[in-house]
């Protein structure tokens, strides 16, 4: 094989449904941050070859314009696909115990379903057109 120098990568692709409404806040500097969590069903075979289905709940964080759009257009149950990177954060509990949390920083969010009956036509397309930061002007 050719001696390719591989770049470092940290990529995540997820599609699932929101487990709760997005929680939008603003940093002191005025940056929007939205947090939500995605339920994702996985199917695999266990060690005995049995088919297992289980749900994972993955915390997502989005920033800026994407955060605001997620907050205004998504709610509990909305189907979305998320592309982003993994970030782990260490924080301390009240008792001073150190905990590590893994979350996905979304760089791209696609809305996969209809949000409400009166939304624009584009959002009714199954599979969702790409509606992240570049499409900010289509909504008034």
């Amino acid at each position, binding site marked *: *094989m050719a*001696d390719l120098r*591989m*770049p*470092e*990568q*940290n*990529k*995540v*692709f*997820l*599609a*699932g449904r929101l487990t709760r409404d997005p929680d939008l806040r603003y940093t002191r500097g005025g940056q929007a941050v939205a947090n939500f969590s995605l339920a*994702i*069903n*996985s*199917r*695999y075979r266990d*060690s005995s070859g049995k088919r297992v*289905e*289980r749900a*994972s*709940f*993955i*915390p997502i964080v989005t920033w800026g314009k994407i955060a605001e759009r997620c907050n205004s257009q998504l709610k509990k149950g909305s*189907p979305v*696909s998320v592309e982003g*990177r*993994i*970030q*782990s954060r260490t924080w301390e509990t009240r008792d001073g115990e150190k905990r590590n*949390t*893994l*979350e*996905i920083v979304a760089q791209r969010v696609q809305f996969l379903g209809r949000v409400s009956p009166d939304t624009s036509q584009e959002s009714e397309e199954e599979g969702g057109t790409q509606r992240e930061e570049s499409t900010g002007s289509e909504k008034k």
Partner: protein
Amino acid sequence: MGGRGSVNKVILIGHLGDNPELRYTPSGDPVANFRIATNRTWKDRDGNQQEKTEWHRIVVWRKLAEICSQYLKKGSHVYIEGRLETRTWEDQTGNKRYTTEILAEQMKMLDSRESAEQLADSPPLTQDTPDMSEDDVPF
């Protein structure tokens, strides 16, 4: 892979921060743990280049766990493909805790030469190692 309507895919390329630690569950299943570092660079508001290292804890089960512990070591450059999974467990005080883990389903070694030669006689590491020559055929 994801279940109905779900996608759950993680792709990481980075270097191992420690040697894989191989253990066996009470039922005899091998599990390996190790950490991978990826670096992220970006420009801050003032245009200064910033860099941050992200550490990812990887969990690998069964056959692939044994392969990882046999061939990977601290510093190894690897490609990991897998999924995210949340696990619930109880801490000492009986509180339910959630942990999100990266489960590796495929691993490719990216260190060239020596390690590649070392591996020449070993079984394929993944079930679907791409055959590069096929990519050269247009149709």
